[in-house]
């Protein structure tokens, strides 16, 4: 796939290279995959909502609470120093994972949503003026739309949509025409949480920069599936979540270019983000601490560190090839079911697939699949403008992670046939 070839490998790639993806070995690392749901073996096809966790992550969180729990920074005692070391180690890992220039450009947040809100409020709030334009794509998750609405209301800026084509891609010609002297911020997703469509983010960033706009990337759905290289993308901000990357909930990463972060005001005030405090004023710590007020989610950071250790040991070329094969096969087989329409059929995609069954509401199909132990998502996937663009209310979404198998794709297809039988008679 051309858009994948365009993503250069992350700096140091470890793992067992040159062999096909060993899915059985990976599955054995995930305890939950052994359980049954409604009397059936679990077929978990909802990793785009949240990925399952390997034993290493579960154990790391447990071990942290059992043997290492203390608050970070500020403490003079041994446990606090250990916790601080463990916490800051993850920042370095994250910078390496995303190929950021420096770990001081990595901020721990509560998740992608928190990261995007931070950028909108702090960066957007300080640069936007009345009449300025924020461009977001029609395929954005609500979390990359609403934060811009909030700051637009405050500043008088306007939010405009970059249209997408019938095949699920960004309309780059329209985007080029939309860019102008009033464009301050371009906020786009790296990969659609609904269609999986991968956006040519390097080109988008270059075009936006040419027009003098800052580029904010929602990386929630790309990070688990693609080798993300922030220095190659050259975006200004990039937000992602730990829990979609086999890590815990409640922890995410926000990358920002150092020069921009240094000029930005704090987002929230509290402990840990200050230089000096007086009763009537205060001065702030440099980034990243400036943006991490209060006791951070330390156990979650430690868990994310275990997830990063885990995925950094993977051979990502083998993973990408495997997931691409799986989603292509799923699209082929689901596409053969009568009355099926795949949303954004022509798109290069990460292993996320949305479709509609003629005459069947996605919730009804989802319920039938649930009785077979198959977990998919049904609904608007927090992307109502995209639903409107394709003239539908909701879709069924199947998403595949490093542990999913071809047998599970077959189970899904059989389940959809069953749904047709039950619901259409």
């Amino acid at each position, binding site marked *: 796939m051309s858009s994948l070839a365009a993503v250069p490998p992350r700096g140091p790639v470890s793992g067992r290279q040159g062999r096909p993806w060993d899915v059985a070995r990976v599955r054995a690392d995930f305890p939950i995959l052994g359980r049954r749901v409604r009397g059936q073996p679990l077929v978990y096809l909802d990793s785009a909502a949240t990925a399952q966790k390997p034993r290493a992550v579960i154990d790391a969180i447990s071990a942290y609470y059992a043997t290492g729990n203390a608050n970070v920074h500020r403490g003079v005692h041994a446990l606090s120093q250990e916790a601080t070391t463990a916490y800051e180690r993850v920042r370095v890992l994250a910078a390496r994972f995303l190929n950021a220039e420096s770990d001081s450009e990595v901020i721990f947040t509560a998740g992608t949503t928190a990261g995007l809100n931070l950028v909108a409020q702090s960066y957007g709030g300080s640069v936007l003026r009345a009449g300025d334009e924020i461009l977001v794509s029609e395929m954005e998750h609500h979390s990359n739309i609403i934060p811009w609405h909030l700051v637009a209301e405050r500043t008088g800026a306007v939010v405009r949509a970059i249209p997408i084509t019938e095949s699920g891609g960004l309309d780059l010609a329209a985007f080029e025409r939309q860019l102008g002297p009033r464009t301050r911020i371009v906020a786009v997703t790296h990969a659609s949480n609904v269609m999986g469509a991968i956006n040519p983010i390097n080109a988008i960033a270059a075009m936006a920069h040419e027009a003098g706009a800052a580029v904010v990337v929602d990386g929630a759905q790309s990070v688990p599936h693609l080798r993300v290289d922030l220095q190659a993308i050259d975006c200004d901000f990039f937000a992602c979540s730990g829990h979609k990357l086999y890590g815990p909930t409640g922890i995410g990463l926000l990358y920002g270019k150092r020069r921009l972060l240094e000029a930005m005001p704090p987002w929230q005030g509290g402990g840990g983000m200050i230089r000096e405090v007086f009763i009537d004023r205060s001065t702030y710590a440099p980034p990243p601490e400036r943006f991490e007020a209060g006791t951070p989610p330390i156990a979650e950071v430690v868990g994310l560190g275990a997830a990063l250790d885990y995925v950094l040991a993977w051979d990502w070329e083998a993973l990408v090839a495997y997931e691409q094969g799986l989603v292509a096969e799923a699209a082929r087989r689901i596409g053969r079911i009568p009355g099926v329409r795949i949303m954004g059929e022509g798109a290069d995609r990460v292993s996320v697939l949305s479709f509609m069954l003629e005459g069947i509401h996605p919730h009804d199909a989802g319920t*039938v699949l649930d009785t077979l132990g198959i977990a998919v998502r049904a609904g608007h996937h927090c992307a109502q403008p995209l639903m409107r663009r394709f003239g539908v209310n909701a879709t069924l979404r199947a998403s595949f992670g490093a542990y999913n198998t071809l047998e599970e794709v077959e189970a899904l297809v059989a389940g959809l046939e069953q749904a047709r039988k039950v619901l259409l008679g």
Partner: protein
Amino acid sequence: MSELDELYQSVILDHNRAPRNFRRLDDATNHAEGRNPLCGDHFDVWLKLDGNVISDAAFLGQGCAISKASASMMTQAVKGKTIEEARALFERFHEVVTGSGGPAALPSKLEVFRGVSAFPIRVKCATLSWHAMKTALESHSNED
């Protein structure tokens, strides 16, 4: 009968395919919209009141088989009922689909929705139009 067959009985599938009273009620006296922000499903419910009696009921909108069949059968069930009777029916229907309370009696046609209680996530689908009906009645009493 499996839980799934219990949920998708033929009568529900029939009402989903060919919903009854699926139209705008031009001479309606009461109207409300039911919307489920989680899934985007929405129905408009219209009622025509003659004094204290619901003389006609209709609906339009989009939803899953459960919500559409439920709306269709709700409009049939409340037609000819007084406001008090319709409200009481709402309470009984709600108890049955949520599986709360005792074995509340329902008009036999609505019994097909008892299977919903095995799928808690689908309760909102079954009750969407019923809530809209109740809201429509309230809008009436407020105007009085």
